[in-house]
């Protein structure tokens, strides 16, 4: 399994990537939405994207919109991992094609629970 962690903060990429690695993902990273689109072009086996909202160059929301235009990426699970906790932002992201939404700060269990719910991680594979 391969995941793409998209966040302009290196420390957040480290934290999210560490959680995903712990449940069996190979992780690639991108620092903004535009870079993430390039990573997806290079890695046709990505199953999951964890996406920050506020990033320079291209936001996470813009990335979701762009990614959902591509038929070949329609099976990729998109999970927002962001500080944007307002209801209307959550609705916007889900309407644009995101599958799940995690609000920072979070514990590793929150991420793993979402992955289990999405069927990307077996229930026994807890941290």
């Amino acid at each position, binding site marked *: 399994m391969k995941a793409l962690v998209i966040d302009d*903060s290196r*420390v957040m990429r480290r934290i999210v990537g560490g959680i995903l690695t712990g449940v069996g993902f190979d992780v690639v990273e991108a620092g903004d939405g535009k870079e993430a689109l390039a990573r997806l072009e290079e890695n046709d086996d990505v199953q999951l994207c964890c996406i920050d909202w*506020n990033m320079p160059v291209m936001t996470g929301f813009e990335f979701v919109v762009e990614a959902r235009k591509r038929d070949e990426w329609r099976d990729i699970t998109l999970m927002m991992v962001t*500080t944007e*906790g307002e209801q209307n932002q959550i609705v916007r992201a889900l309407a644009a094609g995101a599958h799940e939404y995690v*609000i*920072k700060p979070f514990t590793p269990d929150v991420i793993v629970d979402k992955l289990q719910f999405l069927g990307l991680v077996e229930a026994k594979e807890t941290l």
Partner: protein
Amino acid sequence: MTVTTMWEVLADPDPIFTIAEDLFATMIDGEPGHLIRWYGERPAILHPTYTWVDVLGGDQDARVLISMGHDTGDDLARVLFDLEDTDEVPGVDFDDAVGELVNVVGGNVKSLVTHPGALTMPTVSGGMPDMSGLEPIVDACVTWKGSLVCVSLWVFEEKSTTTP
């Protein structure tokens, strides 16, 4: 000048304390109980670091500012990057770590009001930002490992013409 604003719902520091406690419990300490709320006059912070985000483009622009000692920022960066206590923290990692803290706090603060606008990217500086034209709403300080960390919320007296 006193500004009447939607942000005044946060004049009580309790929501800010709760956000800070959640942040430290989940991302820093891995458990609650390591932050102590500070009541009373705020002491001076030696060798301060400031990190802030603005919330622009909503009904009322605002700024969330975190101030702490540089050594405290180093300690927080070491935790977040899983470094040893004696490891040097590169400047870029220091800015990344403390900037992400204010990003998380700012995002959670803005979720408590309606039509808040959008967050700017975090700024980190050894100098206090220009606060002219801003009015304080709340100042909430905590101690972490005995060191002071203060979160303050300010509103702009005039609406910005730019959005993030």
